């Protein structure tokens, strides 16, 4: 296992405040990781931006064993899966959670599983967890669970965390909810996360990339549309409901902000894949949703040019991103 202290926390945070560390070697390393990822045999790429490893606390899930999950996702055509840890919900030793996640992805994923570590900004010394994820585990995307960790998005620590992510070019996924409040264990009710405070942070950190996971039940379309115009806000398909849901979603936000994300194995993976077939979408949209947008989100690719150029509201943020990335 990687030594979690191979880079000192003082050096890490100091270099961040100097504005240098991530723009240099870490980005280079990310490029190296990208180059060394195995080529898949499938003719199509499908990045699942929202999967989990380990056990859901409330019921046994058939494909919760990592090897079985990897096998079933590959059989379904997935070529890369961004995996968080279900242990993150209730465990307090987040450093251990992230270490197990990293090791499990390394052990079973063979490059297929991309670990998305958890940061809980309510914990003392959470910046050390951030440093370990970014420096030691080379994570490009981190996941937050505000509902389960007991904070709202307007607290100063969230601002600190997003500032770090902004500076390090780390994508942040925020889980808005994990299950229908009507179906929760009555001993552990968890409300959906209120996203209104994100508007302020998006203005403060214009190149920050945020992905809202399982947001479609809790975040009204108008609010989602507003956030997308302020900054680089993406969504997955988890909890997108109603017939032809993708057709309706693309009438609210641009296709460039929608990523395939299944919420497997908590949800049946096929439920997300079927959504791609239930809606009629403009030509080329499936590639954007299936992998291009995820690559842009994780800074592996600049935004893919689309016919007719980028939609007007995004030209400003696109320019900011290009400038910030040098």
């Amino acid at each position, binding site marked *: 296992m990687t030594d979690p202290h191979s880079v000192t926390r003082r050096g890490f945070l100091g270099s961040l405040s100097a504005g240098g560390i991530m723009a240099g070697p870490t980005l280079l390393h990310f490029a190296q990781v990208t180059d060394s990822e195995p080529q898949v045999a499938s003719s*199509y790429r499908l990045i699942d931006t929202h999967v989990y490893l380990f056990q859901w606390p409330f019921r046994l899930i058939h494909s919760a064993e990592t090897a079985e999950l990897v096998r079933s996702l590959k059989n379904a*055509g997935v070529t890369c899966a961004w995996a968080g840890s279900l242990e993150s919900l209730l465990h307090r030793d987040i450093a251990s959670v992230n270490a197990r996640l990293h090791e499990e992805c390394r052990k079973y994923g063979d490059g297929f599983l991309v670990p998305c570590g958890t940061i809980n900004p309510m914990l003392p010394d959470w910046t050390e967890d951030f440093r370990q994820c970014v420096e030691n585990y080379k994570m490009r995307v981190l996941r937050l669970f505000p509902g389960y960790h007991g904070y709202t998005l307007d607290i100063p620590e969230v601002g600190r965390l997003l500032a770090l992510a902004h500076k390090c070019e780390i994508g942040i996924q925020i889980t808005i909810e994990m299950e229908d409040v009507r179906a929760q264990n009555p001993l552990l*009710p968890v409300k959906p996360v209120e996203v209104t405070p994100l508007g302020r942070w998006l203005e403060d950190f214009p190149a920050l990339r945020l992905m809202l996971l399982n947001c479609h039940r809790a975040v009204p379309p108008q609010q989602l549309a507003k956030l997308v115009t302020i900054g680089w806000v993406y969504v997955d398909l988890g909890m997108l409901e109603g017939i032809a849901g993708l057709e309706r979603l693309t009438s609210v936000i641009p296709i460039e902000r929608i990523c395939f994300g299944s919420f497997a194995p908590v949800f*049946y993976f096929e*439920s997300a894949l*079927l959504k791609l*077939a239930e809606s009629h979408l403009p030509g080329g949209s499936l590639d954007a949703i299936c992998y291009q947008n995820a690559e842009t989100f994780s800074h592996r690719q600049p935004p893919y040019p689309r016919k007719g150029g980028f939609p007007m509201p995004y030209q400003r943020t696109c320019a900011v991103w290009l400038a910030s990335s040098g």
Partner: protein
Amino acid sequence: MDFSPRLADIKQRLFPFPLEIWDGHTHLLGLPGKTPEERLERLLECASRLGIGRVCVFMGTKWQYDPTPDEMQEANNEVRRAIERFPSRAFGFVYVNPNHQVASLDEIRRHVRDGPMVGVKLWVARRCCDSALDPIVALAHDCDAVVLQHTWIKTTGNLPGESTPHDLACLARRHPDAVFIAAHSGGGNWEIGLRAFCETPNVYAELSGSDPTSGFTEMAMRLLGPRRVIFGSDAPGRSFATQLGKVLGASVDDDTKRLILADNLKKLLAPILKKKGVPV
């Protein structure tokens, strides 16, 4: 529109073998269209994309928890107009309210006994363990119609007249010869809901209207067997995709998927369809 090879690839992965799919639970509310017929046309268009051949539809274009006799009539007239436009693809269930028993029985006679509808839909006006439902169930049984009763167990609390699966099990025990479909099977709390039907063989668990949480279909299979589980979507409020994923993604064999997706519902509707001369 995207008719790309990628879409063909996705469909091939999802439907590697031929499947007939009947959806036991759909609505007209929430669809675009000026008329019920236009709404049903849109519903069927989306259903076709996922290979859903037939749908059961009920409750009109406006919903009331406790509809008056006039509101019931209006809702049922809308559904009837719509299904008569697509007789080969849509079956109608008559929506009734046990708080208006006489009017409910009239609606069943008008649309089921003397009309094209094949089932009775009960929602949240009154908990179904109440004896007010007995004449409704008896008439439905006389007509060979199935009774589809909404059932949920909400952690946040049910509506006053909203039935739980236990309420339905109570009703089903009083009418052992009638056939009941437990819409939603308790909803998101299906682990509790499904257990209520273990001792009531005349109740069929329907999978619609909750998040596609892994394990639902497998547990229904384990407790009730493959012949007492029925696919339904609750579209358009729910996605055909999410609900179909509960079956296509389940760890059950292909024969079981065929039973859940069409054969079980076909068998339940066969007597009334035969009586009405509808080929299956």
